[in-house]
């Protein structure tokens, strides 16, 4: 598909686009994934947001060993390895790293990079409970981020600029939603690999470019008769689906499975809700990014997420669930123990749990387990 190829090309040249922007004096705002940093703030400050979502290569995990113990989540160890290496083009180009602090794993990244590198780290807290006081604290964090970005860029984030940025991001969310929802039907016009690639692109490339590409893509998808769902339909969920960690989708595809919907704490940018463009806009951002967002497993409690997974499984008519998490992400590990019980009771479906440390030696065993699982649900 032409639009898909275009997006891929833009993703490939992403770092060069950032370099060009930087040469023109535009600030580059790096941020830690997880869906708690509203890119709108960076855009409204005339800067370019870029998510630090690349991982999957074991070398950066190994590089982290000198700085942190191995008993932390693999993705965050990989980020530490990349950040301290001085060789990662994305970490090298950012003017600031906005770090929404969610759990211990992500806090370790912020502290370790702060200590060992010259990167300007700006942490702000994400509460673990959806309550009025939590909402207020998150809103307070957004105000601090806004002030930081204004100071960094010298641009005042006015209501007008923010509204425009929200409208742009709403458009992006709306199109992502539209594409994703097409997978509800019996004929699935887009593969999970392509959808995830587009979702990752939404965290890296220029929004205006991506929006145009997604518009063309929707048209192409409406006209296509390609069906990507020949095997069992799957919900893929877990902790982090990084850009560069493609093995899980490859293995499922090779085994004849079809992921028709994904839900991850990091690596799948939330796109289900738009931000309200009337009233106080920072409050509107806090409402969507904190209150309306489906919670990750590190929430207290995170039952809302498990209920949501059940709903997704039903809405997208899946035949099975694959839980893909990274090693030592404790909240997900604990949930993976009791969620199968809930899933079984609510839907009659079974679940396959897979874990990764970005180690190539895992692939053989993972392949066997996926094949066996798909075989069992086919029966």
């Amino acid at each position, binding site marked *: 598909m032409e639009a898909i190829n275009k997006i891929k090309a833009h993703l490939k040249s992403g770092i060069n686009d950032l370099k060009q922007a930087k040469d023109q004096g535009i600030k580059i705002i790096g941020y830690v994934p997880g869906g708690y940093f509203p890119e709108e703030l960076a855009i409204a400050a005339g800067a370019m947001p870029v998510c630090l979502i690349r991982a999957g290569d074991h070398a950066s995990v190994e590089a982290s060993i000198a700085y942190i113990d191995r*008993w932390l989540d693999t993705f965050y160890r990989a980020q530490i390895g990349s950040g301290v290496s001085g060789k990662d083009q994305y970490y090298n180009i950012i003017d600031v790293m906005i770090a929404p602090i969610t759990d211990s794993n992500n806090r*370790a990244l912020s502290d370790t990079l702060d200590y060992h590198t010259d990167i300007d780290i*700006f942490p*702000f807290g994400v509460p*673990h409970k959806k309550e009025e006081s939590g909402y207020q*604290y998150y809103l*307070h964090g957004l105000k601090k981020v806004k002030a930081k970005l204004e100071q960094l860029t010298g641009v005042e984030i006015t209501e007008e600029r923010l509204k425009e940025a929200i409208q742009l991001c709403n458009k992006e969310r709306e199109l992502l939603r539209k594409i994703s929802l097409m997978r509800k039907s019996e004929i699935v016009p887009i593969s999970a690999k392509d959808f995830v690639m587009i979702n990752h692109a939404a965290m890296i490339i220029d929004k205006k470019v991506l929006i145009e590409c997604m518009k063309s893509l929707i048209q192409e998808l409406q006209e296509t008769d390609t069906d990507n769902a020949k095997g069992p339909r799957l919900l893929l969920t877990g902790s982090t689906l990084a850009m560069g960690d493609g093995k899980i989708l490859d293995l499922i595809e090779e085994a004849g499975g079809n992921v028709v919907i994904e839900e991850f704490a990091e690596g799948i940018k939330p796109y289900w809700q738009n931000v309200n463009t009337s009233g106080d806009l920072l409050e509107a951002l806090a409402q969507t990014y904190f209150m309306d967002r489906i919670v990750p497993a590190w929430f207290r409690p995170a039952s809302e997420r498990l209920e949501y997974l059940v709903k997704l499984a039903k809405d997208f008519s899946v035949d099975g669930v694959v839980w893909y998490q990274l090693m030592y992400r404790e*909240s997900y590990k*604990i949930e993976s123990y009791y969620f199968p019980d809930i899933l079984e009771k609510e839907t009659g479906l079974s679940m396959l749990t897979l874990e990764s440390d970005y180690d190539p030696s895992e692939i053989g065993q993972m392949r066997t387990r996926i094949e066996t699982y798909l075989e069992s649900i086919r029966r």
Partner: protein
Amino acid sequence: MTYYHKLLKLCEFDEAELLSQKERIERAFQILELGPADMEIAEARIKKYFDTGLLGVRKAIGVWFKELFDLVLSREEGKKIIYYGYPPFQYIGLAIKAAAKSKNDFYVGCPEAVISQTLGQFFHKLLPVLEAGEDAGLPPGHAMCSLLQVKVGALEKGIIPVPDLSIATSYFCDMGPKSDELLQYKFGYPVEYIDSCLDSAWGTWPEYDHETVRYLGAQLDKLFCTIKDKFAIEINDETWQQGRLIAGRLYSAINKLTGLLAADPVPLSVVDSELILNFPIGCTGSVMDEGAEAIEILAEEVKKRVENGFGVAPKESPRVLIVLHSISDPVVNRLIEDAGLAVPSTMALLPPPPEPESYPFTTLGEKRAEKAMFGGAYHSTYGMVKRIQASLKYADVDGIIYNYPFACRPFVCGNKLTKLHIENETGLPTLLLDMDPQDERYYSIGALRTRLETFAEMLRARKAAA
């Protein structure tokens, strides 16, 4: 004579107590599945590892047994049960207990600390509990906190009762609250999460954002409301003060003892000082009076040792500050002294650094939240590092042993940064010693010994060169 008579007599239970408590003791041991052979094991371990020549030590061990019985029997004795996670929010258990009109109607404590301390240290029987925890949702091989495996396993095995409320501190670590969520799913008990965010930037402690205090304060105030609604216990400034007064005797006894431990030679083994470390943190029952009395007696005994120049390690041995004790295995604690190191203190026993001027916060929750921020560990990793650094001024040491539970994320997040920061700022060599305070399958005594001996050798050489 009953099968537990010798053991409990060793731990200073008197005959009248043994008689009047017979039914309770036997029922508790039955629930805990502890029989005559276990009593022999405990007696032998206590005699081998603890300094039973000291009355204060024997009494302190006895207090742990009483706390264990109270915990295990609390439901059968018709008590309302409130658990809190470890480490708890400062004084939270005491505040609840102090505010309760009839204190005997409530069990308030941290069950995983009590079980580790007793089934681990004395009976060497934690393994079946840990295994039950592994099977019930905290599996092996995934760096799951063994302290929480103890809690999950103890509930799963039915050796501790299902509580009426569990209080989880939800920002210091993620595994604690997540385990409560798991247990809530399994046992259906309510959990109150005290939330906050450890989002202060590196280098900012003791500065803090007032809004962080307000958020944590709001969470605490909400918890107080829940406790009032559920148990008719009203926690306010006055009852909080009462809690502190009740604990006052215990803390002043601890401070007195800590002061004496600064002597050279160090007069008390780290194995014995461990016994009192968790008194104010782990439980709120017998420890308040009998525990305080045990420490007062111990302090007098230790004072005499200091006057006589008695030490558990030779005078002028290299002195180290340790960050934690093992709370379930005296063998690990003993290793440090066996390597020829003297331990004048543990971080948790040292006074907190002086507090900056308070901001006029209004609610009780906010005032307590501000104190927690000053304490360091609830501020940030940097706050925790600075807390260690500040406590060094009370302890004349040649090095630090940062012995940490390998699966405890708050420690893992900051261990290497702590070492670098402390060594750069103070010049004190710091040994990172990963261990597991509950699960002996995760460490090798031989490997720990080698590392400790090498570190001790290096400290001795430095001392000699100086």
